């Protein structure tokens, strides 16, 4: 009987493990889906058009709607970066990088400052007038101001 029970429960444990892993994976995915934009607290906007976000992060625009100078900053990689690039720039991270390399190597623009971690990006945004960046929803945003993308 004991033997039979263990054979029955083993697939149950496996199923539980798969379920747990799926949940964790979904959690990561959900976190990545929830990218939010943050700006330096001195920037006088609380909303931003999606087309302006695209233009600022591709170097076409250098100013916010209130006329102040925009300093885009990016993450070097990670789920938040991938979601940002795919959703707001319609590109893959490689194409996004290539586009900025083109700007730098043709003299048409400077690459945005890139950060390895969200905490480093948030610190820079908090300290730099005009800075705008993006992080996952669960990063603390105490010293920066969130801006809401609008269609």
């Amino acid at each position: 009987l004991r033997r039979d029970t263990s054979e029955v429960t083993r697939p149950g444990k496996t199923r539980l493990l798969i379920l747990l892993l799926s949940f964790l994976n979904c959690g990561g995915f959900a976190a990545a889906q929830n990218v939010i934009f943050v700006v330096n607290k001195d920037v006088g906007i609380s909303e931003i058009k999606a087309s302006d976000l695209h233009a600022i992060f591709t170097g076409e625009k250098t100013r916010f709607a209130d006329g102040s100078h925009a300093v885009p900053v990016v993450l070097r990689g990670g789920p938040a970066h991938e979601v940002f690039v795919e959703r707001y720039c319609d590109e893959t991270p490689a194409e996004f990088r290539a586009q900025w390399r083109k700007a730098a190597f043709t003299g048409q623009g400077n690459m945005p400052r890139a950060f390895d971690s969200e905490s480093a990006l948030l610190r820079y945004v908090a300290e730099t007038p005009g800075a705008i960046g993006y992080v996952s929803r669960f990063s603390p945003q105490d010293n920066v101001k969130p801006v809401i993308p609008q269609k």
Partner: protein
Amino acid sequence: MIGHARLFSFLLVFAGVACAQDLSGIEIHGFATQGFLFSSNNNYLTAQSSSGSLQWTDGAVSISDSLSDSLRVGIQLHMYQLGQLGGPNIQVDWALGDYRINDHLGFRAGKVKTIVGLFNDSQDIDAIFLWALLPQSCYPIDNEGFYLSHTGGDLYGYLPLGNHHGSLRYDGYLGEDYLPLDGGYVKQLADAGLQLTNEPAGRNYGGDLRWETPLRGLLLGYSPMVMGLDGASPGGALHVPSFLMTAQYAQFARGKFYFAFEYDKVPVSEFLTIGPQTAIFPLDTRSWYGMGQYRFTKKIQGGSYYSHYVNKAMNTSLPENYSKDWVVSGRYDFNSYFYAKLEGHFLHGTGLGYYASTNPNGLKPNSNILAAKIGFSF
């Protein structure tokens, strides 16, 4: 004494901080590539490609700094060797000051990359392309130094057209361009008997207008450019009266897909004087390409293009007056810095990329070419 030491220390620290702040905005980027060419027939691009050639090296370093929110300065130094073209000399690729009054209007002055078609200004930046060789009908690598940049000024800007009409980007320029002595055209002239000692130069002006359409990822554009050239040497002269070249293009980029099409037209007559004789070489070139590429994974990209060139001023049935190239290419990115490319060309016609001096026994009309490259960029 202690006060002086404190002041000295303070000045040192202050100078250090000030210096660090000044330098913190400086951006330094660079790339280096090494290529390999192998052709089944003929020697391609002045390299001994029929026996396999590694004479294909390229590198650049750029330094730029934002002096203020509106003002940026920078310079890029470039060196390349392709077969007998280029050489060890380091050249200034571009060196400019860029003053952007607002998003709608900015100025660039100095030696500025010339925007013509989709890739003219970026054709020498290998790292950003899937292709080892861009479509040679529109971007011949043996002459990439010709109208790659101009010495003069640009006026540029970005104009949003509202929520449902996309946006416009424009660039207009006036300057002087030159034919590099280590480039392909000058080598062809040398093969024809005219050894130029000074770079032929002339005024050029033109512009580029591109519309980012409301259809996400679709870009349409038009670039006209007017230029002429004059050059002389003890043995003769080259005179190219002003001509208008035009490029029309479309690009669709969304997610992992990328498609592009471009059509260029160059009607021009070259007056070549060697000794007492002057010969006219009429050209009416029509060049176009269509390309498609797809990113399979983060590291692997593949694609294909067809590149077509024909000189309508001559007998278009002769191989020397056309070039038709089917290309298949793949790229592997080891990481965000290192990459490798492998590319096959199925080339019909000898109108582009071949030189008499490196093919002394004449040319066969068709050739298959393998191009491979490794590169590094930061």
